[in-house]
């Protein structure tokens, strides 16, 4: 009897905590559906170089490390560039507005070069890729929110010809 009451209470507590945590995760999912671990995963500003070939990749704050998704995008870009050998591209590196201007110029350059290096390992000749950093000067989203900043931390592959 005492035991079963104990079990019942435990069960209730467990049930309650499950319901609560479900609520919590649902909320969290809603807010961060376009950001994962500080990296933008949405498609709002993304354009396409060709069918299925996204033009941009996104970075975490202060980072230039390529995510799994970024590497996937870049491999598709590389395949497209290998197929269209007359096309040259400019990689434009960008940062969010939450950093000092001069450092961001360097960071944008580092991001674009991370993309360039990856394209090169997948067979795109370096003379077909040029790099420019805009630092924080050319955001794509003018908001001041974590979501806007995540969209702005990017490297965009732009056709140069």
């Amino acid at each position: 009897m005492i035991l079963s009451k104990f079990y019942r209470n435990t069960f209730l507590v467990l049930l309650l905590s499950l319901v609560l945590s479900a609520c919590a995760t649902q909320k969290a999912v809603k807010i961060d559906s376009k950001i994962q671990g500080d990296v933008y995963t949405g498609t709002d500003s993304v354009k396409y170089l060709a069918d299925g070939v996204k033009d941009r990749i996104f970075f975490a704050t202060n980072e230039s490390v390529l995510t799994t998704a970024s590497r996937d995008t870049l491999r598709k870009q590389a395949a497209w560039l290998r197929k269209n050998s007359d096309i040259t591209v400019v990689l434009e590196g960008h940062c969010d507005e939450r950093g000092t201007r001069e450092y961001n110029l360097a960071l944008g350059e580092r991001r674009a070069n991370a993309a360039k290096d990856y394209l090169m390992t997948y067979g795109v000749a370096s003379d077909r890729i040029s790099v420019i950093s805009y630092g924080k000067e050319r955001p794509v989203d003018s908001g001041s929110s974590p979501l806007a900043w995540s969209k702005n931390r990017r490297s965009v592959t732009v056709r140069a010809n």
Partner: protein
Amino acid sequence: MKNILFLIFLLVIFFAKSSFALIEIDITRGNLTPLPVAVSPLHVESKSSEVLKEIKVGSEISKIIETNLLRSGLFNPLEKDAFVQKPDIAHLKPRFEDWKLIKAQALITGKVNITNDKLRVEFRLWDVLAAKEMMALAFTTVPNNWRRVAHIISDKVYKRLTGEEGYFDTRIIYVSEAGPKTQRIKKLAIMDQDGANTKYLTLGNELVLTPRFNPTNQMVTYMSFFRNLPRVYLLDIETGVQEVVGDFPGMTFAPRFSPDGKKIIMSFAKGGNSDIFTMDLETREVEKITEHPAIDTSPSYSPNGKYICFNSDRSGLQQIYIMRKDGSDVKRITFGQGIYGTPVWSPRGDLIAFTKMYQNTFYIGVMRTDGSGERLLTENYYQEAPSWSPNGRVLIFYRETKSGSQGEGYSATLWSIDLTGYNERLIETLTDASDPSWSSLLTN
């Protein structure tokens, strides 16, 4: 610019008798009571009053002096309504009891006339309590130079009463901004320290950033995205001639002059790595100062030219480092919480100003050159890029506001703050503004 600079100021010191400083301001303390000072409108002598403009010049000059003194935070200019004595009589011999009555401790008087098409401005500084003249000077210049005369008088008064050089006869170079955040139009702009005489030096066709004066204030080094090739440029303010600095196969940025004006120090980015280089403007010789796979940027020389402070993320995140001018003996000096950027060496040599980012807040601060004694002067949503007044007492920097999802509510403005952390003030500009840089004193 040159013809303004080289207009001869005939500096006539009359009544050269030595006077002892009886009133003095101790500016080492932070929150002191400003010294009450009466700035009498300058008397316009009747024989030259056919030039109507001059009548205004007398009171305009006194207004500029008042504004300068007020904005320094060290002086409290008194209401002119309370002045009893007429400007011309006060200038000859003030009735000190009258000025004492309105609690003035210092009094500035003067007169203006035009002789042979030249503007002659005479001023005197009086110690009201001691009933003595402290200083008397006269300047002769072309009439439309009257604003500068007002700034020079302000500097003389400031120096006489504080014992330190002033910073009023100076200019600010900055980036004028307009348009939506995603497509901002930026132009180089120059103005007097008090916001007057704004001139644009570029048209806004290309993005321009981070202008900085050379020691003689005739040249500016800045970064431009002309033809989508982001490079460091050199601009002669007088002639408007621009040239790329060096022949680098990649982006150059974050330029500053060496204290002797002979070199430009800057970052050069290639292959994802930014290092610091110098270029000698005469020999065009390029020297690599840092060599590290991390980002090295925002270099700034010590005033004696022997050291360089800079920003690097070689420890993982942005921190401030110092090294010898040849790049040897690199030492990290910031170890506090948060990350640090934009170090700038004070013209006095004893401090480094910086931007600090911590928990999504931006601070402007100062510390000693070994990183000790960090003091944060002001915090805000976004601010960065401090630049020192030539006397090392005031910092100018820029702020950005948080914007809504469509960029609404966004602004960029210039601000100044005392080294003490007091006296924070908006510096009004005709447009939005960023990347300010303070000139040295124009007259020396």
